[in-house]
């Protein structure tokens, strides 16, 4: 921040100028400290400290047959005990094949859903970007609209369509294609469908943003030089839209990995996902330490690599803009 510039020659004016400069500087400092302090303190208290508490409790032991609140006191007292049990919770996660399977399955479901979103979303984004400006606004609004309506209700809408006496099965049976209802609901298929459906807008928007900015004269030049459309798409359009592909994929992959609502409402007993496991450990088993250990493992395996990736990406874009 630059203070007022002092250009006056008279000594009184000079002094006044200096005074004002000092004043605005200190005021600026104070204001600046206030601006930083408020969100900083809030995030420290309600975001960072809680993560450390989760780590602490993941190192504790579950007090059997106690109400969920009371065990906390015991954990606060025994430090040495906590360190000994530490191995317990994490070893349990490692030894029980359920948890590892759930982690791997979450990664798989999120990755496959991201690819399907990309396959459906890319043509949509491309179509919107090449539409006439007035159509573009309408089409974009129709992409954004579902995002503002309730996520839970959009997932719920599929229950009515997929269940045994639901619309799809009735339609297929009415057409005589099947004799018995297909078990569509409570299956892995339904989980993929739900995730793709819910997160498709997150894929389309960043893709659109990169596609609409593209210079179309490049394609014209390629066509003039005899390049077939599919080839100019592969060599020009696709590489240039790569930032959008990456941004959209991250926006789908990240929430999909930790998803709870979709596997819970649409998935079956075999659709294990780590968000659902954590929920069940906490609400059904009331095992806070194991739930905390699951959370810590999730942070280490999924969130920290993503944060690092984002940091690298930011540094690269910052380098480019310089």
């Amino acid at each position: 921040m630059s203070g007022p510039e002092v250009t006056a020659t008279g000594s009184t004016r000079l002094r006044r100028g200096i005074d004002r400069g000092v004043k605005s500087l200190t005021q600026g400092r104070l204001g600046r400290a206030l601006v930083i302090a408020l969100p900083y303190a809030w995030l420290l208290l309600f975001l960072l400290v809680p993560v450390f508490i989760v780590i602490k409790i993941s190192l504790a032991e579950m007090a059997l047959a106690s109400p969920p609140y009371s065990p906390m006191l015991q954990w606060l007292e025994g430090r040495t005990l906590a360190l000994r049990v530490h191995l317990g919770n994490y070893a349990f996660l490692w030894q029980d094949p359920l948890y590892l399977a759930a982690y791997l399955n979450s990664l798989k479901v999120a990755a496959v859903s991201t690819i399907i979103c990309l396959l459906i979303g890319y043509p949509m984004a491309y179509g919107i970007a090449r539409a006439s400006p007035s159509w573009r606004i309408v089409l974009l609004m129709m992409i954004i609209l579902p995002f503002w309506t309730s996520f839970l209700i959009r997932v719920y809408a599929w229950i009515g369509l997929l269940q045994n006496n639901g619309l799809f099965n009735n339609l297929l049976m009415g057409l005589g294609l099947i004799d018995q209802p297909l078990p569509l609901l409570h299956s892995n298929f339904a989980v993929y469908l739900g995730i793709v459906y819910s997160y498709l807008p997150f894929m389309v928007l960043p893709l659109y943003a990169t596609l609409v900015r593209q210079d179309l004269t490049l394609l014209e030049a390629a066509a003039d030089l005899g390049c077939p459309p599919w080839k100019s798409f592969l060599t020009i359009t696709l590489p240039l839209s790569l930032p959008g592909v990456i941004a959209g994929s991250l926006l789908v992959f990240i929430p999909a990995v930790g998803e709870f609502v979709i596997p819970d409402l649409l998935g079956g007993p075999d659709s294990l996902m780590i968000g659902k496991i954590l929920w069940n450990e906490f609400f059904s088993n009331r095992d806070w330490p194991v739930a905390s250990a699951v959370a810590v493992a999730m942070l280490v395996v999924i969130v920290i690599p993503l944060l690092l990736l984002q940091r690298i990406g930011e540094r690269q874009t910052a380098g480019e803009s310089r």
Partner: protein
Amino acid sequence: MSGRRPFLLFTAVAFGYAFLYLPIITLMVYSFNDSRLVTVWGGFSTRWYVELFRNEQILSALWLSVRIAAMNATFAVVLGTLAALTLVRFTQFRTRMLFAGMVTAPLVMPEVILGLSALLMFVSLEQLIGWPEGRGMTTITIAHITFTTAYVAVVVQSRLSQLDGSLEEAAMDLGARPWKVFLVIILPIISPALIAGWLLGFTLSMDDLVIASFVSGPGSTTLPMVVYSSVRLGVSPQVNALATLIVVVVSTGVIIAGWLLHRQQRRHTGKAR
């Protein structure tokens, strides 16, 4: 371009939109179904809407959710704007990396972790200083503010970084104090972002099931929690009616907002010409 390509593209786009909208439209149609069964069309009826408006549980949950969402959005806009200002304007201070990390963390953290960590924090705080007493509206609001602040910060940050710094410099050179520069110059320019941030915060809070489930207490059941518990048992006609109302209200809002935006853009381009 050949004639087949646009046709293929058109089909792909149409398929995408059908995929996005068919489930919602089916839901809306069946909310007027007189029969309780999904399979049978029992004739047109608005009885589920009548029952919905008599459902005390849903109505009180809705009211609670609206209050939490409004409070959350207001706080989140204040905190998120300050956070965005910090990130854009103050590029040099110690532990800036930590701050930037904390602002973006809720965007990549799974909701279950945010919920669990917030709950464990509240339980520990209660043991240490006796606050918050039990869990309920306050704890849900605090947990919501923490994660929505990140979204508001992103929205405001992108607007702030587009700002022309010379305006501020000119004001400062003419002797305006930093806070005055903020109030008179920065605030009016970023006000669309603040409104968008507020609406985003409101929607995110209204929509949240996972975090609220962790940090709520007895007697504080939000709307998504009520919907979730009735939906787990299967299709519920009252939820269909509720969903239809939500979709209608939100669509009206989005369409009006889009229309205003469109008009504003037109005016700008008209001026430029």
